């Protein structure tokens, strides 16, 4: 594919091009060299494979859920099986896919390169976090194989502590361990970003992807331990019967909700912030422009992280928190929505007077903008106290967080994977097939989740195995959409695997992007840079890039 007018894709001559002889992939051979690697890029790839594995397990559960909901009657699976399906879907997707999705894969791979470092600050801890991820994952899988767990991903007490006979302890310990994996990833990022920046790489020269991961890392480090202690208390309550959350012993079950959501609300920002970083990179690159209002976008990430800690009780408006407290939390929720609105408009205005091309990552980014706008605005519905009463615990909320998490984060993740695929593997994915996948995903997604908003306003409760027949039409639409969505997700898996061997050689900088990662070979060397880079220009400086390319041409030619 040569550079035509409608693309900025700039690949080397395929006849002569080869992958670099020495790179991080072939630096050492053998499975052990991967399992004991300290290289952030290899760990990123290990994570990528792992989360893909869990994504498809979680996705299979989602498929079964949608299949069951095709008819109003409980006919495909029994009630307890259905409950296990959505619980495992939630636990796997939230803790094993969404939380590590962008930070642990793309972030792991790119943050050191983007700031000009040779590796993360603590390579061994980075590897440890991958192992913790798998230990936690295996606990979760064990719980699944032994018969599943049916608490829902929220582990609500006293249901989870006293009224269920499933493998709550195993799954709880799994999530506990995965939590530490996420803590270590966040910790590593923060130290790296503070301590390992290349000369000249000031805070405001960092790519926005680094900023957003930094904000997410703060949330990981400060929020996750609260989840950990909460799960410890749940496990202790189940096993030896202490009474911290047990109303019959004098405990307050709402305390569990407070502590759980103290983590789990910031967790949604852990999930979405890195995705926002990806979108900033992609939109800038394909409109050949610096992100509109770089500082505002950077600070809005930090603002989201900060405010993210003050709004958790909006998950509990109808649960009997005090009215006054509900007021405060609702107000703060409205405030936290503003930085997201700022980001959206800044991205839109980045396009202004750009020179826009429509490669696959850009299509995903457009999808993200649309879906995230809907997801964000429906969040305002739920943050408004009186509206929340009718909408919460219905399919409206299901649709809302799928718009943000799947429509937002997964779109961003796929945008990022496509965008950096040439950097990670040195090869291009097939362009037309991937565009087809992007469009399929977008259509399938909307078909799946838009009907759920209507269902939610009709009052269909979430986590329902059977439902009144008048809701069937919308559910059928939703299931049909899920089928399309499933195809949309299978396609990248197949063609990306194909491209590993048969994809075109990408060269160093196929997108003509400005980030440091694009100035080195692809796939990169194990040590990333031959010599320590010196950052002597602002982020997203396309004039600098043009100037540099010109110089190269003159020196080489």
């Amino acid at each position: 594919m040569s550079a035509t007018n409608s693309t900025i894709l700039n690949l080397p001559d395929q006849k002569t091009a080869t992958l670099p002889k020495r790179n991080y992939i072939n630096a050492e051979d053998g499975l052990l060299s991967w399992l004991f690697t300290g290289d952030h890029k290899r760990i990123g790839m290990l994570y990528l494979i792992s989360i893909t594995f869990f994504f498809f397990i979680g996705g299979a559960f989602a498929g079964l859920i949608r299949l069951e909901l095709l008819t109003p009657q409980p006919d495909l699976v029994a009630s307890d099986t259905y409950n296990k399906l959505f619980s495992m879907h939630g636990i796997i997707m939230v803790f094993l896919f969404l939380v590590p999705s962008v930070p642990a894969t793309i972030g792991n791979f790119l943050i050191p390169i983007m700031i000009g470092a040779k590796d993360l600050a603590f390579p061994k801890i980075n590897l440890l976090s991958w192992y913790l991820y798998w230990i936690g994952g295996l606990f979760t899988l064990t719980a699944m194989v032994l018969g599943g767990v049916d608490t829902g991903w929220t582990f609500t007490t006293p249901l989870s502590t006293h009224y269920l006979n499933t493998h709550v302890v195993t799954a709880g310990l799994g999530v506990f361990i995965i939590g530490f994996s996420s803590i270590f990833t966040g910790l590593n990022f923060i130290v790296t970003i503070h301590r390992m920046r290349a000369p000249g790489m000031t805070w405001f020269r960092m790519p926005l992807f680094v900023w957003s991961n930094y904000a997410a890392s703060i949330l990981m480090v400060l929020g996750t331990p609260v989840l950990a202690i909460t799960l410890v208390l749940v496990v202790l309550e189940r096993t030896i019967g202490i009474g911290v959350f047990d109303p019959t012993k004098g405990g307050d079950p709402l305390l569990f909700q407070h502590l759980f959501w103290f983590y789990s609300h910031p967790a949604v920002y852990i999930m979405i912030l890195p995705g926002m970083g990806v979108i900033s990179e992609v939109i800038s690159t394909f409109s050949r422009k610096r992100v509109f209002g770089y500082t505002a976008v950077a600070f809005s990430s930090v603002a989201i992280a900060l405010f993210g800690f003050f709004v958790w009780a909006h998950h509990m408006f109808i649960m009997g928190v005090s009215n006054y407290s509900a007021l405060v939390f609702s107000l703060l929720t409205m405030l936290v929505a503003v930085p997201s609105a700022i980001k959206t408009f800044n991205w839109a205005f980045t396009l202004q007077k750009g020179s826009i091309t429509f490669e696959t990552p850009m299509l995903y980014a457009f999808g993200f903008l649309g879906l995230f706008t809907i997801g964000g605005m429906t969040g305002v519905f739920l943050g408004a106290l009186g509206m929340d009463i009718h909408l919460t615990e219905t399919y409206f909320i299901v649709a809302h967080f799928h718009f943000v998490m799947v429509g937002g984060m997964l779109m961003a993740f796929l945008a990022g994977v496509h965008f950096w695929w040439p950097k990670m593997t040195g090869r291009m994915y097939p362009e037309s097939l991937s565009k087809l996948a992007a469009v399929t995903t977008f259509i399938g997604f909307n078909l799946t989740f838009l009907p759920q908003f209507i269902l939610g306003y009709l009052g269909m409760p979430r986590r329902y195995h059977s439902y009144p027949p008048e809701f069937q039409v919308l559910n059928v639409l939703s299931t049909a959409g899920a089928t399309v969505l499933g195809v949309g997700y299978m396609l990248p898996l197949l063609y990306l695997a194909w491209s590993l061997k048969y994809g075109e050689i990408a060269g160093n900088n196929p997108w003509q992007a400005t980030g440091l990662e694009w100035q080195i070979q692809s796939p990169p060397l194990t040590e990333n840079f031959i010599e320590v880079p010196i950052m002597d220009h602002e982020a997203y400086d396309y004039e600098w890039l043009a100037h540099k390319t010109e110089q190269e041409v003159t020196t080489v030619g």
Partner: protein
Amino acid sequence: MDNTIVATHHDTAAEDHHAALPQHRHHFETPEQQREAGTFGMWLFLLTEIMFFGGLFFAYLLYRNWYHDAFVVASNQLSIPLGATNTAVLIGSGFFMALGVWAAEVRKKGLLVLFLILTTLLGLVFLGVKYFEYKEKWEKHHIPGEHFDISEFVNPPINPKTGRPTEQPLPPDVAQKTQVFFSLYFAMTGMHALHMIIGIGLLIWLIRRSQRGDFSAGYVAPIENFGLYWHFVDIVWLFLFPLLYLINRHPGS
């Protein structure tokens, strides 16, 4: 590969006053950078520990206010001499740990090993005392769960000297809430003890490495960072002691 950006720079690190250490990792430019990164990372880890115990402390704060009477009586079951001794033991352990860091800084191998061993011993003493405290609770059926027994709070034993109950008897509904206190007591001290056990495991590993002389040649980061962890565990206890043992020890109110 294009090198315009990766312009050459002169590595001044080699001339730094620190000699190159074998423990220096290649991806750090200077040992100083490595050391600061390590300290910073350790502090971030301690932040997670603050929040980890933070959840427990909040639960304690809430229930102490709800069930103050039950908390007072249940707290009086704990032994102040043992608690105070343990506090002193732990402070002593922390003191030797701090001295250990100093010994490593001034590269005195013998002193370092000695101080680390003292730290470990005091840590073990703490756990030993804790064991006897737990054992007493076990015998009195004060461990929350199925076997929890409130009879001692409803009908306190009579003090043979005065002929009066040793403790204000509690109505049964209040006495039941002592279980919340003991739940928190075991959760908090249990988590603390778990941290101590992990710490002692690490200490033994550090002692062996110190004997090899790993930390008496200028590379002290593991000792220093472990010291941070050990002091943090001390700090948790500094709060646990007054909160759990000393709620209301003045008779007559």
